[in-house]
């Protein structure tokens, strides 16, 4: 397992994937406060400005929303090749022949990039927190921000597991990215339409927006559902890989 983890870390560093994710998230973290503090008042003008009072809370919420919408797209297309390219480019063939277990190979991906999905968004959320406090003044406690950041990260790990699963099914990176986005936004749309966000991973995002660090039953439900979904997608991925035929000739 150690060698697989090492390989994924090298991939994350050498392909610049970490940098892309970090730069994009940081950009969102820095842009939202500026939009709300500088650009929005300029656009709206003086009178409306007094009616719409922006606070740090609004700013962090807006950032969390951006990460789901724009950040989701960036994450999907940055990491869409995680499993799809391995299959498309046959790079998994030699490791499989060398006796690498599917569980280890996929597990290492989930672990390394899952950890990144926690570290990077939380780090940029803290940047957003500090920056917005400089612009708007402190309003929200750091524990609330960290709590929301962790909830969002758990959601992003679910997002990642979808990417890994769709990559194995489509064997092509771009379709895998689109399918993951469709899954994520589809769940969001349907659950908000049916008012059952508490029962889907989207509930984690709703809870994160609250910026209220308390654990209640509805949070536990969406947390359990998310973890179960991650386990299920991984199970499906493993089952698919187990019955896959390798090195097929496209001509035949």
């Amino acid at each position, binding site marked *: 397992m150690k060698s697989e983890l090492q*390989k994924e870390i*090298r991939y994350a560093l050498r392909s610049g994937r970490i940098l892309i994710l970090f730069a994009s998230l940081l950009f969102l973290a820095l842009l939202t406060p500026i939009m709300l503090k500088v650009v929005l008042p300029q656009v709206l003008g003086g009178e409306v400005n007094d009616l719409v009072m922006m606070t740090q809370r609004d700013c962090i919420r807006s950032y969390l929303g951006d990460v789901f919408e724009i950040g989701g797209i960036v994450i999907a297309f940055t990491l869409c090749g995680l499993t799809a390219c391995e299959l498309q480019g046959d*790079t998994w*063939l*030699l490791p*499989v022949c060398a006796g*690498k277990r599917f569980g280890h190979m996929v597990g290492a991906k989930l672990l390394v990039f899952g950890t990144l999905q926690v570290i990077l968004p939380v780090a940029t959320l803290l940047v957003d927190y500090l920056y917005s406090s400089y612009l708007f003044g402190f309003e929200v406690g750091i524990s609330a921000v960290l709590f929301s950041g962790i909830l969002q990260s758990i959601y992003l790990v679910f997002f990642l597991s979808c990417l890994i699963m769709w990559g194995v099914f489509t064997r092509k990176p771009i379709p895998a990215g689109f399918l993951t986005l469709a899954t994520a936004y589809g769940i969001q749309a349907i659950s908000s339409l049916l008012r059952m966000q508490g029962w889907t991973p989207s509930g984690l995002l709703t809870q994160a927006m609250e910026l209220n660090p308390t654990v209640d039953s509805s949070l536990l439900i969406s947390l359990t559902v998310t973890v179960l979904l991650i386990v299920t997608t991984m199970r499906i991925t493993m089952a698919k890989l187990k019955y896959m035929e390798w090195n097929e000739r496209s001509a035949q």
Partner: protein
Amino acid sequence: MITVTGLKKDFGDFQALKGLNMHVQAGEVYGFIGQNGVGKTTTMNILAGLSRPTEGECLIRGKDVTAVAHPGDLRVGYLPEEPKFYPWLTARETLLYLSEVPDNKRVEEILRWTGLVDGADRRVGGFSRGMKQRLGIGVALVRNPDLFILDEPSSALDPEGRSVVLRLIKDLKNMGKTILFSTHILDDIERICDTVGMINDGRMVFEKPLTQLQVEHAQPVLDMIPTVPIRPDVADALSKVVGVVSLTRSESSWAVRVAHPGVSLTVMSFLAEHGIAVESFAFRKARLEDLFLKEVSDK
């Protein structure tokens, strides 16, 4: 080492293998020849546990290949036709990653053996085709299996690269390994094989030791270049001489296939009788190439 009986593989309506039989003994170099698309790669994929047969039985060391849970459990050093590595890893890292237990000393040995010491810390993405092929053979050896399955290891390489790969295969043989490799370059077969199996249209055409094959099919050929053109009626008479099997003409030279070398005397006296002087009169053995072409055209 390998026993294959009645192997069939269908891809939808297409039958890639139609009941292939094969027998590879321990410690030999087995050359698998055949044209492109006759089922060599399919057979090797099944033997490496990467693909499942539709019908038939494949035994490696007496065990059924479909019985293992994971291709890696077969302990076969497999080299695909075009080995794909992670371009962002170096050669050394690739070997370490694909080792069972990371062992720097063994990796160092393999790098030296494959001649990749200088490129060891360069990223594989910048490697030439030949270097990748050598790295692929190194990767196959890193787990030290006793059986190697190499798919067209030398076909896409320049003559120098080919020699290196053939030397590596010879080294493997000297280490006591069993090697099954496919190729369509007959010269490679003649240089290193112990046994030759020829596959055509999803079936084994023949499977014989190379030496036996050479004896059986070594009908001597007389190549001669006459100084004057041979008239058609004289050529006809020559082909009817006892001991002459066939007569073919290409440009100014004639190839006379004879039953045994002694026939050359009869041919010489025939030429003298008809007053045909020759520029050259040479005797050669039929090469595998001729045999291969004959087998393919016979089918």
